């Protein structure tokens, strides 16, 4: 008979209680790991999305800049619809020293209640597939040929599969590809080529998606990629001179706008996580304190037969630590597995591409969470053990 044996018999002999404690700690640890994985996955998804966006800055019509920024809308839902710049700006910006690539985008009138889109408002965007480097990289499956006439790419909110014909206003189009979820306005948009836009405009009659006040040779925005080694700020400033009446918005600004939009959600999630941690520590302390109280008589008896307060401290700390480590390990494994299994569901629910860390990353996160959980839980484990070790043996036997 020794301390380890006493601990193992106590855990085995009180199976229901031990099981409940392990299950409770597993639930908390699993919840904490799952929340951490989801938050990290969302963050990685957004970061990757921004990297995939490709543009170092986007030039928008100057008069359209303020309302767009004020609404934080450039990436999040509302485009610079109804604001125009001359198409010749595209060449002027392209010719600037340090500019690697430029690509134009034209934002047409949104469609409300499109039957093939789960979002209320469907954005309609014309772009140049040959120069584009911001939309097509999001394609779930790369097209094996250039985007043809009357062919469209849809965002994640488009409910019909590729190969389906769709009617937009009076125009017959064919969906040939879908984008990954981005968490941005791209999700609820369809994209077709400038060539298709030209064909639409050439058709007789009026089209509700083509703004009546749209000037000829006009575009809505220019996505700009700067060459390596050049200052984005300098090139963006140069664009002001080269293309008057435009305003460059840097990717960092885009990221900030995006971050601000997500900040509320993330703040809430992190706060919830913090509350879960605090509750976990408090409840764990409560459970182990109850365990000590329940065994006052045992503590008194052990002290009477020769156990020092140090032995009692080690006895309860060992038992509670084993239960905590066991519970946390099970919870972390189950939590990671559950998040992995629900990856697709999370992606569709959160509306953001959800990137799981690599297997090594997950293992590291599991170890970090376990260590962090134990460090944070240490007061919850120490308090009852200290309480047990300081218990007056005569009082312990008396108060039962």
């Amino acid at each position, binding site marked *: *008979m020794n*301390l380890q044996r006493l601990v193992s*018999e106590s855990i085995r*002999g009180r199976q229901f209680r031990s099981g409940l404690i392990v299950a409770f700690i597993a639930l908390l640890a699993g919840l904490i790991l799952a929340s951490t994985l989801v938050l990290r996955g969302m963050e990685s998804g957004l970061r990757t999305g921004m990297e995939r966006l490709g543009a170092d800055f986007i030039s928008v019509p100057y008069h359209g800049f303020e309302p767009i920024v004020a609404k934080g809308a450039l990436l999040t839902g509302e485009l610079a619809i109804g604001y125009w710049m001359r198409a010749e700006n595209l060449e002027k910006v392209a010719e600037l020293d340090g500019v690697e690539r430029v690509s134009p985008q034209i934002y047409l009138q949104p469609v409300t209640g499109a039957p093939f889109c789960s979002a209320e408002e469907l954005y309609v965007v014309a772009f140049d597939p040959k120069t584009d480097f911001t939309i097509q990289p999001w394609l779930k499956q790369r097209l094996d040929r250039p985007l043809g006439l009357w062919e469209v790419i849809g965002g994640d909110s488009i409910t019909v599969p590729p190969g389906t014909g769709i009617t937009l206003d009076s125009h017959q189009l064919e969906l040939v590809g879908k984008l990954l979820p981005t968490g941005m306005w791209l999700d609820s948009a369809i994209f077709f080529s400038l060539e298709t836009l030209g064909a639409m405009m050439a058709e007789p009659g009026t089209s509700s998606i083509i703004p009546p006040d749209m000037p000829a040779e006009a575009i809505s925005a220019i996505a700009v990629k700067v060459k390596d080694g050049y200052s984005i700020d300098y090139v963006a400033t140069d664009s002001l001179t080269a293309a008057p009446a435009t305003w460059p918005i840097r990717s960092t600004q885009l990221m900030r706008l995006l971050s601000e939009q997500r900040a509320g959600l993330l703040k809430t999630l992190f706060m919830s996580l913090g509350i879960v941690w605090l509750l976990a520590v408090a409840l764990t302390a409560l459970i182990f304190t109850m365990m000590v109280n329940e065994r006052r008589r045992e503590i008194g*008896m052990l002290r*009477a037969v020769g156990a*020092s*307060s140090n032995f009692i401290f080690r006895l309860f700390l060992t038992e509670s630590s084993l239960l905590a480590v066991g519970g946390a390990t099970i919870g972390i494994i189950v939590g990671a597995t559950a998040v992995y299994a629900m990856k697709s569901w999370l992606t569709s629910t959160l509306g953001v591409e959800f990137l799981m860390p690599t297997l090594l990353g997950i293992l590291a996160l599991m170890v970090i969470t376990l260590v962090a959980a134990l460090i944070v839980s240490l007061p919850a484990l120490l308090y009852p053990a200290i309480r047990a070790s300081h218990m007056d043996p005569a009082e312990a*036997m008396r108060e039962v």
Partner: protein
Amino acid sequence: MIELQKVTKIYKPRRQREVTGLDDVSLKISPGEFLVVTGRSGCGKTTMLNLIAGLARPSSGKVLVDGTDVWSLNDEQLSALRKEKTGFMFQVPSLIPVLNVVENVMVPTMFTAPEKRLDAYEWAKKALADVGLSHKTEAFPRHLSAGEEKRVVIARAIVDNPPYLLADEPTANLDELTEKEVMALLESIHKGGTTIILVTHHPSLIGYGTRHLTMSDGKLTE
């Protein structure tokens, strides 16, 4: 020898009046004695045993066990003294429910030096044989009768032959026959050389002792 020198124990329960558990008690218990202390419930008998065992600290006065002032020792030394010198029979059930009988009896041997612990199982079996429970070694406390449980507690108290056995109401809640069996066991242990201090509210046990004292309101009288 166990000696109490002008020992007083005052309890100070939270938000309640002070209670004097033991009031200026002086007492010498010589080796080989079987001291029976009787008195009504709440008169301070258990307090006196707790003080002798070093489980409670006196408010004033000294408790000496074989010449050592119990409360001059630190926690480790005091625990070692308890283990070496005293076996304790609590009034309330004190077996660990998740351990079987032989494991319960082995509990005090956990605090013996590791090299001496090798024979702990044999000691426990012998102690159980001494109390007539050889056939119950693997049973769990929930499967024992009240009398058997008392006998396991006695076995645990004597497993490593302490010179002093402190028994707090050892026959409480036992029927007459079982009471006699338990007392016969204690008599036999006493005959083996163990000093016994037994406290009880039951006057019928006075005859088992070599000396009798009465306690009332925390004071001892012959």
